[in-house]
C-alpha cells in the first residue's frame, strides 16, 4: 500500500519535473566541466577556454555531436547528438553567458549564387574538403565530408574554425560570399552527374582504372600473342 502510494506520487511528480526548463549549468556540470573547467576557464592539456567563444561555436560543436569528446585530444567527428533541442539550446545559452562572443549566424543560402559559391569553395575550402566536399585526410587531420552539414552549421564552422580549420572573418569572406558557399555545398550534396562511374567524385580515378585494368591488360595480351607467334 505504501509502495503503491509512492509510485502514484512519483507519477504525479514526473510531468512537472519534465516541464521544468532544463538547466544549462546542470548540463554543463554533467557533460563539459571535467575538461573545460568551471565557468569555461579551460583545463591545461584537457580542454580549451570557452570564455568568449560565443553561441555560434557552442551551437556548432553540440549540434554536430563533436562535443562531448570521448577522450581529450582526439579529433572531434560527427556523431549522435546526446541532447534534445531544448537541452541543447539551454547549454548553448549557458556557454555563451561566459563572455561576449559571436552569436549563431543566420545564413541565407537562397540569396547565394552556386557558380560564385563553387569558385569561392575551390579557392578557400577545396584544398582540404575536396572540390565536391567529400572530405579526405589533408593536412595532418581527417577532413569531414560536408554531405550532412546543415546551412547554419556551415556558417558556424566558417566563422569559428573548428579543430585545425582556420577562421574566416567578414574581412576575408563576406556574409554574401558565405551564402554562395553554402548554396554550393548544398548543391554538391547531389551534384548533377553526366554519367559514368563517379566513385565519390574523387577525380580522374575512373580514367586511371580504365588505363591500368583494361588497357594495360590488353597490352599484355597483345605482347603475349606476338611473342607466341615469333616463337612458334
Amino acid at each position, binding site marked *: 500500500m505504501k509502495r503503491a502510494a509512492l509510485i502514484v506520487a512519483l507519477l504525479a511528480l514526473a510531468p512537472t519535473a519534465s516541464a521544468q526548463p532544463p538547466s544549462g549549468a546542470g548540463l554543463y556540470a554533467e557533460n563539459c566541466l571535467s575538461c573545460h573547467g568551471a565557468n569555461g576557464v579551460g583545463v*591545461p*592539456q584537457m*580542454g*580549451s577556454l570557452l570564455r568568449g567563444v560565443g553561441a555560434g561555436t557552442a551551437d556548432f560543436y553540440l549540434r554536430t555531436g563533436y562535443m562531448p569528446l570521448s577522450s*581529450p*585530444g582526439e*579529433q572531434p567527428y560527427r556523431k549522435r547528438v546526446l541532447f534534445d533541442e531544448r537541452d541543447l539550446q539551454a547549454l548553448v545559452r549557458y556557454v555563451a553567458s561566459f563572455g561576449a562572443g559571436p552569436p549563431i549566424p543566420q545564413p541565407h543560402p537562397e540569396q547565394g549564387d552556386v557558380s560564385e559559391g563553387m569558385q569561392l569553395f575551390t*579557392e*578557400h575550402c*577545396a*584544398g*582540404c574538403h575536396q572540390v565536391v566536399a567529400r572530405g579526405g585526410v*589533408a*593536412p*595532418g*587531420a581527417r577532413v569531414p565530408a560536408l554531405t550532412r552539414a546543415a546551412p547554419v552549421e556551415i556558417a558556424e564552422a566558417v566563422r569559428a*574554425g*573548428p*579543430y*585545425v*580549420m*582556420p*577562421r*574566416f*572573418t567578414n*574581412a*576575408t569572406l563576406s556574409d554574401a560570399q558565405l551564402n554562395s558557399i553554402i548554396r554550393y555545398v548544398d548543391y554538391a550534396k547531389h551534384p548533377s552527374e553526366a554519367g559514368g562511374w563517379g566513385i565519390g567524385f574523387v577525380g580522374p580515378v575512373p580514367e586511371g582504372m580504365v588505363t591500368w585494368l583494361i588497357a594495360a591488360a590488353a597490352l599484355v595480351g597483345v605482347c603475349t600473342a606476338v611473342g607466341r607467334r615469333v616463337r612458334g
Partner: protein
Amino acid sequence: MRRLRDWLLALVVPRLGKRPPRRSPPRRRIVEGREPNERAELAATLLFLGSAASALAFPFLYAFDVHPLTQLLGLSLGLACVLLAAALIVVGRGVVVTEELAEPYPPPAHEPEQEDIAQLAEESGDSISRKRFLVLAGGAAVGSLGIALVTPAASLGPVLDMDPFFRTTWRRGRRLVDERGTPLRAGAIEEKVFYTAYPEHADREEIGSPLIVVRLDPAELKLPGERQGWAPQGIVAYSKICTHAGCAISLYRVPTFAPVEPKPALVCPCHYSTFDPAAGGSVLFGPAGRPLPQLPLMIDASGELRAGGNYSGAVGPSWWGVRNRKPTP
C-alpha cells in the same frame, strides 16, 4: 667558335676515313660470298637518316616553342621511332645475311675456334657494299633519338643566371595591401585567420608579390637567430608560392586548442607540402626541398604593415640553380 669547329673536324674527319686493319694472313672463307642487295641498303640508309632528321627536329621545336608544341613534339618523336623501326625491318630482311647451319658448333674453348666465329660474323657482312655508311646512318638515328629524349631536361631550369629569382617587388618600407588594395593594419590581423597580401603599387602577377600573413603567439615563435625582429607582435609573412612546384599556398592548419592538436602549418594544396610558420617556414612534411622564403615585417607609426626588406631566399619553385645557391644574407 672557329677553334671549336677545328677541334670537331679534327675529331671527326680521321675517323670517317679510317679502314679496319687487314687480317693477316688471309684465311679461307667459311660463309659463301653473295651479291650485295644495294636497293635494301639504300632504303635502310635513307630511313635511318630520316629518323635522325625527325629526332633532331625535337630540340629545335622545343627551343623555339613552335605552335602547337605538344602535337609537333609528339609527331617528331613518333616519326623518328617509326622510321627507325622501318629501317631495322629493312636491315633485318634485306641486308643482314641469315645463314642456317646444320652442324652444331662445339663450345668455343680454344683460341682458333673463337677466331673462326669472329671471322664468320665478319664475312657475313661482306655482302654489304656500304656497310660503314649504313652503320653511321644507324648510329645517327639512334644518337639523334637520344638527344631528343634528353632535351626536356632543359626544363629542369636555369643553372647559371639565378639573379632574377632573387629580385622581387618587395623593398624596405613598401606597404602591404589586400586584394582590394586597402593597406593591412597590424591591429586588424587576427589569430587563426589566413590573409593574402600584395605589395602596394607593384605588379601582383610577379612571382614574388603574393604574401601569406598570419598572426601567431609571439611566445611560440622559433625564428632563426638572424631573423629576430622580423615578426612584430607575432605577425609573420611568407611568400605564397610553394618552393616545390610553385603552386599558391592556400591552406592554413591552425589548432583550436594547441596543447592537443597539430601545430600551425601552411599547406600547399597541390602536393601537401607543409611549412612551419613559427620556425621560419621550415618544411614539416611533403616534397618541398627548402623552406618557404620569409619577408621581414615592420609596423609603421600609423599601425600599418610594411616590408622590412627582401625575402630570406629565392621565391618560387626550386630550380637546379636555386637549390645549389647559398641563401643570400
